[in-house]
């Protein structure tokens, strides 16, 4: 088997040519974003009292579940605050970035048929994988380098050169591990959608493992690649060796992916494709039935993922209550978070996260209409008696109903698994908290629909808004953003039930805004040219 890597260098240069802008955007926004947050943190936690208060907040299982191992709290300086609160969150983004890059240059190329054209040249069997891994490695290393240089330059004394180097290296470590994961998932499924889904599910799984492990202060975090990176304790212990685990996983997964790719045909997955029905069921023959079928896999995937998320946090509700009775100066803390009990505060915060993930589903579901359009399949469907309104509305209906269904499912599972561990009733509370979040999620769907209708090439803005909402929902309460900045997220308009009182008016307004945006989007879609080139 000669020259299995031949042409990797050239494919790498081609990939770089195609993607340097994409890479720059990812690296710059993650790098600059981290530096900006470091500067914000130094403001917020400038006093000893503020530091003490955040330690108390973070010492709860909820706080640890959202951030990282409790050991960071042993010396909560300006550096360890940053690495504790941010690394876990950024790890998700880096993981997703790495998965998207690797799949884009492996399975997507195969699926589009370009790999066949390329491999007919003297290009080795592993060249696509090698070039994709190299490209992703370069993106990760660039981010690490940026962090290692930028953070010490902020002038914050706690952000040392050594610490920043470890902090950056922890980012690369996570990115490389998930690049390896994606290299494997790209071998398993025949579609890039499937490979991305599996890869991102692995990122979510790794995050959940470390969240559960950190909240319970157990060794479970050691089962997670994100956990390994956090065990390097940047700005605290500055340990290199846990990152070696990430590197080892990367090497093993890359080798596995190449071994798998050598065992299969180009363009195929690991299993022979199953055969399906010879004719469509009466359900599939309806426009909505077809749309539902197209969305089935993604909806199921998100339902399972969010269901697991709910179930994995439920059992910790009891711990939160225990913690509550143990801490003497709890009154102060509670007023800081708001709400009757810590459980209420935890539910509020968790539901925002769940709603953002469900929002990811909603936006993806709406944008499915757009990808149907650009793939040319939409043209075929619209060439029949189906109207444009029906076409777009069906996708939006699936998004609206589907996103609501999965958030309710997650909330129900959270309540059911949490109820045995606590004295107060939580199932109803969780469900009401979920219902409250639905209108805000619908606004995101509305924005995506409006963009599909009026600015189809700018649909990335829907992701930007979602990312921002996620950021505010996740870290906003720690960052103490200015009022107007927080208000840009639709979630900020919600009553913070159960931590705060329930008010109905904002929910009605948000629902109306969502409906208006959806209607606007459909009107725009009826007016513009179909984008099929």
């Amino acid at each position: 088997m000669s020259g299995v890597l031949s042409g990797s260098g050239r494919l790498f240069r081609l990939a770089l040519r195609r993607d340097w802008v994409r890479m720059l955007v990812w690296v710059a926004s993650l790098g600059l974003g981290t530096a900006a947050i470091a500067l914000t943190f130094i403001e917020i936690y400038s006093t000893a009292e503020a530091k003490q208060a955040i330690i108390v907040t973070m010492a709860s299982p909820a706080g640890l579940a959202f951030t990282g191992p409790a050991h960071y709290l042993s010396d909560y300086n300006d550096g360890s605050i940053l690495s504790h609160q941010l690394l876990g969150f950024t790890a998700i983004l880096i993981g997703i970035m790495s998965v998207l890059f690797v799949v884009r240059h492996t399975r997507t190329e195969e699926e589009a048929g370009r790999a066949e054209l390329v491999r007919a040249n003297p290009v080795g069997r592993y060249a696509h994988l090698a070039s994709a891994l190299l490209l992703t490695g370069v993106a990760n290393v660039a981010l690490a380098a940026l962090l290692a240089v930028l953070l010490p330059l902020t002038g914050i004394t706690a952000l040392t050169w050594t610490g920043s180097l470890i902090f950056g290296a922890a980012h690369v470590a996570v990115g490389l591990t998930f690049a390896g994961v994606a290299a494997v998932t790209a071998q398993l499924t025949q579609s890039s959608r499937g490979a991305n889904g599996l890869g991102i599910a692995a990122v979510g799984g790794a995050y959940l493992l470390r969240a559960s492990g950190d909240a319970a202060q157990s060794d479970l975090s050691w089962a997670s690649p994100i956990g390994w990176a956090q065990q390097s304790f940047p700005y605290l212990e500055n340990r290199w060796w846990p990152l070696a685990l990430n590197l080892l996983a990367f090497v093993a997964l890359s080798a596995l992916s190449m071994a798998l790719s050598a065992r299969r045909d180009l363009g195929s997955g690991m299993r022979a494709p199953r055969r399906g029905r010879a004719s469509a069921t009466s359900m599939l023959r309806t426009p909505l039935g077809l749309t539902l079928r197209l969305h089935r896999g993604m909806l199921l995937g998100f339902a399972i993922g969010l269901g697991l998320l709910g179930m994995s946090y439920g059992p910790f509700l009891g711990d939160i209550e225990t913690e509550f009775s143990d801490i003497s100066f709890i009154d102060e803390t509670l007023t800081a978070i708001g709400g009757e009990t810590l459980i209420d505060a935890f539910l509020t915060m968790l539901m925002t996260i769940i709603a953002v993930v469900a929002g990811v589903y909603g936006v993806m579901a709406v944008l499915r209409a757009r990808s149907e359009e650009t793939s040319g399949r939409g043209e075929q469907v619209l060439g029949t008696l189906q109207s444009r309104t029906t076409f777009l509305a069906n996708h939006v209906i699936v998004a609206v109903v589907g996103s609501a269904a999965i958030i309710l499912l997650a909330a129900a599972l959270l309540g059911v698994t949490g109820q045995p561990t606590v004295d107060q009733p939580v199932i109803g509370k969780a469900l009401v908290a979920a219902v409250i979040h639905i209108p805000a999620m619908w606004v995101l769907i509305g924005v995506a629909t409006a963009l599909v209708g009026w600015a189809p090439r700018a649909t990335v803005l829907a992701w930007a808004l979602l990312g921002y909402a996620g950021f505010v929902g996740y870290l906003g309460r720690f960052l103490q953003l200015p009022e107007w900045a927080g208000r840009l997220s639709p979630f900020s308009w919600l009553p913070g039930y159960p931590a705060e009182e329930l008010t109905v008016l904002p929910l009605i307004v948000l629902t109306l805004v969502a409906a208006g945006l959806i209607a606007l989007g459909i009107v725009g879609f009826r007016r513009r040219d179909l984008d099929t080139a």
Partner: protein
Amino acid sequence: MSAAITTRGLVKTFGPTRALDGLDLEVDQGVVHGFLGPNGAGKSTAIRVFLGILRATAGEARILGKDPWHDAVDLHHRLAYVPGDVELWPNLTGGEAIDVLGRLRGGLQDKRRAELIERFDLDPTKKGRTYSKGNRQKVAIIAALSSGADLFLLDEPTAGLDPLMEVVFQDVVRELKSQGKTVLLSSHILAQVERLSDTISIIRRGVIVQSGTLLQMRHLNRTHVEVRTHRPVDDLHTLPGLHDLRREHGAWVFAVDPEHLDATMSHLSGHGIDTLTSNPPTLEELMLRHYGDELSHEHLGEARRA
């Protein structure tokens, strides 16, 4: 002359489907070999096995004396491929795509590239996503033909081309042949294959059912005869080897098996031949003979008359 492509009992299965079911194919060097068969017969699967991007389940294939799976990279220095369905990178121009593919094989002949762009009337400055199917096809054809390869695997290469470009394509393939290159041309367009091919194989359900020159194939198949005689013939139906016998405008029309052609002609000349037209079987008829049982008899009749 050694063979450019040799396969023995090549089998490729996809789960329960047997796409290739013991394919025996031999293509000599320096010829244009037409590879005929309907959709799903296994043409593209065979070509992808020759490319080493699909791995044969059983059997043997030698391409230019090498194993296509194990020696893929070496082999691809001497081989060029045009798929029937070309996908390009959406944000690269056609010219860039040609160069990228050229670089991947270590460079292309610039003069040849320019000449082909001119002849195929391609605008190399448009982005991949804006090309029509035919223009994407041209990009792949130009990239393949600008290489100095010895063997060309063309899988329905002109599926999206207009008739004018079809003519250019045929000229180019003839030039390749005159330079001693080998071309495996899979196609649906029978006229194209008839005009270009030295040898032809017909593939059906993953097996080669007939192979040879067009002339050889014709010798193996029925000739169409339309004949008027001075004296009426009424015993034609008693002769062996005649098919589809009927009267049309006072003439007898029938098809005759090659081994009975001589006897039939002798019998007819006994009645004094007035006019006689005889047509060797067209490629279409050769194809239909092998696929006829897949069509209903009525359709077959229509196709013959057409």
